[in-house]
């Protein structure tokens, strides 16, 4: 079908289409390319009025400098925070998503509205009271504190995603297992979990990316250089030069 459709188009229309596609590819990829090229150009090739798109020679020493600086530490910090946020979010979403998909709990409608709108919440309405809470609990500059604050951003969406994956699995599956004499938890563990892992993967990726990229909470609650996550470190480094 596709060949026939393309074949029917006039050559001029095809040409226009290819130019537009070229433009889309260029704009999408150029910032990545430019970031990479700039990072391996010698300084003299960076500060030029006419950009040098393909530098005559490349240097990789900046990457070596990175490794001896604070970046590995901050990379690890980001990994710890995003990893812990992902695991906790996954557990919470796995549990709550099941309850919301299978049980007619009272006020389920409202609970669904709440978790859907959590994603829309402005971060600024949480940032001040969470700062006070964490300060009072002596959790500023700790991974636990930041992870707790990140849960507010990840849990709603992840639970919603998990629930929709549970809904796609016919309820008869665990019912028949229960009829055969195993409890609901055993039925879920043996039969349902193996089927919903794509949902868990999707909501985990969402949680990881959200936490990994998060700046406002991280910049506010992690003020010691040794505890900074990558976005904070990057922002500070960039604004100080």
């Amino acid at each position, binding site marked *: 079908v596709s060949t026939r459709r393309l074949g029917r188009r006039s050559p001029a229309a095809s040409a226009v289409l290819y130019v537009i596609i070229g433009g889309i590819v260029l704009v999408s990829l150029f910032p990545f390319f430019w970031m990479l090229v700039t990072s391996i150009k010698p300084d003299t090739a960076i500060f030029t009025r006419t950009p040098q798109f393909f530098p005559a020679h490349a240097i990789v020493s900046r990457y070596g400098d990175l490794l001896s600086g604070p970046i590995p530490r901050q990379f690890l910090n980001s990994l710890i925070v995003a990893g812990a946020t992902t695991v906790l979010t996954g557990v919470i979403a796995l549990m709550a998503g099941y309850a919301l998909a299978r049980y007619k709990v009272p006020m389920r409608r409202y609970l669904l509205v709440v978790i859907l*709108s959590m994603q829309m919440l402005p971060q600024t309405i949480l940032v001040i009271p969470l700062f006070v809470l964490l300060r009072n609990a002596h959790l500023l500059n700790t991974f636990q504190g930041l992870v707790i604050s990140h849960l507010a951003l990840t849990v709603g969406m992840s639970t919603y995603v998990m629930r929709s994956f549970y809904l796609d699995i016919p309820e008869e599956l665990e019912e028949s297992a229960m009829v055969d004499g195993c409890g609901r938890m055993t039925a879920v563990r043996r039969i349902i979990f193996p089927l919903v892992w794509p949902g868990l993967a999707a909501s985990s990726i969402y949680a990881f990316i959200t936490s990994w*990229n998060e700046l406002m909470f991280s910049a506010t609650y992690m003020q010691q250089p040794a505890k900074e996550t990558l976005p904070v470190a990057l922002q500070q480094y960039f604004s100080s030069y």
Partner: protein
Amino acid sequence: MTSSARELGGREHSGAPARRAGPPPHPPRRRRRRLSFDRHALPWLLLTPLAAVIIGVVGYPIVRTVWFSLHSGRYLKLGAWVGLDNFKALFSDEYFIAALIRTTVFAAVCVAATMLVSLGIALVLDAAPRAAKVLTVIVLLPWAMPRVASGIIWKWMFNDQYGVVNWALSSIGLKGFNGFAWFNNGFTSLVAITAAVVWHSVPFIAISMIAGLRSTRTEVLEAAKVDGASFTQSLIHVRLPMIRPLLFVLGIMSTIFAYQSFDHFLVMTSPPGGPSHSTEVLSLLTWLQAFAVLDAGQAAAMAIVTFVLLAIITAVYIRFNREEDQ
């Protein structure tokens, strides 16, 4: 007989054939107790962690912010009760009013640009099915770049002396852009920030639209073609109306995200919100008011205003979403 007891009975009845086939796996009483646990206690147990997060990290903080907004909050400590003074002060503060208007205009421009560019990309990908798979991956890539990193690279590309944007504009004949300092005034700073934000938000919207557009390839579209409708006509009168609910939801979502933009502003403006307050948006202003000026009362009031505005937009979104579900 309560409904749960009846269901319980029904469940045991359906269990009967299995029991007839062999000895029961457990004595009946234990089984009944376990079913009762599964039915009544388990859902609450499963919901407890979610409830703890919603109440502890979202609900309680919102209440605290409301409480803060009614007090003076110097040095991020709850001070004396001031009633609505914080709000009154806000709406007589020209910087806040300016930020409110600026955020709204910025969000509107971002959404319009994002939706149009995304629609264009979706149409191109829809028209070139052979290349669609590779193109989808390429188009999605900017979404994967952290916002802070994309802010940095775009600021570098808009650099006055060494930026590729000025080089490209002046080499196509716009000599005025030779050495043009984008970040010296508010308007051109916002143009550069808009470019960065739109670049980052297009992928998600475009990919969602492609799926929608594919679903419009039906007999209706063929019929329109047979009737001699041009590409533009069938787009405006057939395809777009068919995906109007999707377009609406995507529009609302990108409005909310554009309204909350923070990272790009913090990275791309120096000092944050500068030059001379000309790029302050609500999220940045609120954050600075709280953690640079250390006035939690005023900042909380700003957060409440943002919250109310977004709540109105979200309410529309939820309502629409629910109608779609039914």
